[in-house]
């Protein structure tokens, strides 16, 4: 014969556990339903909404490549690149070689078969032209 106390506790405990699990399961199902209702897949966002929560990397966007003596030179900055591209070819080469490739006037003069002094003069003159052009176009000088 089973102990009536044990029987009673077993019944209470069994009922309690079943109730707890059932209620919790219903609660979780509710929660899932609510989440489904409010959640939106990233794929469904409009481009406008998407732009609010994302960023796009801008590497290489304002970089321009020039060719000098068979080498490619990368110039960063749209306005600067535009100014350089507007220079005549001999002046442009001097600027690129001396400021972007770091060559001395003597090296440039050897490469271009011109005397050194004329390279130096051409460079000074071109720099002035560049400056005038950039000021006219409203170039913002980077802080140094």
């Amino acid at each position: 014969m089973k102990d009536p106390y044990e029987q009673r506790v077993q019944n209470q405990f069994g009922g309690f556990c079943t109730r707890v699990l059932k209620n919790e399961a219903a609660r979780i199902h509710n929660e899932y339903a609510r989440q489904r209702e409010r959640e939106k897949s990233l794929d469904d966002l409009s481009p406008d909404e998407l732009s609010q929560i994302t960023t796009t990397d801008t590497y290489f966007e304002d970089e321009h490549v020039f060719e000098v003596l068979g080498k490619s030179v990368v110039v960063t900055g749209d306005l600067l690149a535009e100014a350089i591209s507007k220079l005549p070819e001999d002046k442009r080469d001097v600027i690129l070689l001396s400021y972007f490739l770091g060559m001395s006037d003597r090296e440039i003069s050897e490469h271009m078969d011109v005397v050194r002094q004329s390279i130096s003069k051409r460079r000074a003159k071109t720099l002035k032209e560049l400056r005038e052009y950039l000021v006219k176009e409203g170039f913002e000088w980077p802080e140094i």
Partner: protein
Amino acid sequence: MAGDMNVLPLSVIEEAIKGDGDALAAVINHYKGYIRYLAMRPLKDDYGNEYLCVDEDMRLRLEAKLIHSIVTGFKILPA
């Protein structure tokens, strides 16, 4: 005796209420099947086929809730 296999012994219930780990594990084991049944959810695959799957997340939450309730909420009522 065969019927007793389906019911938890009194001693285990009493220990579980006190928070004994082994006893609680035995209770969880006892309700394993029911918990799995409750945590069953229909799942759609990429081809639109529906399967019934046990939601692991939900299963664990049910287990945790049961343990918590037994320890904090269960009182043996007087006759």
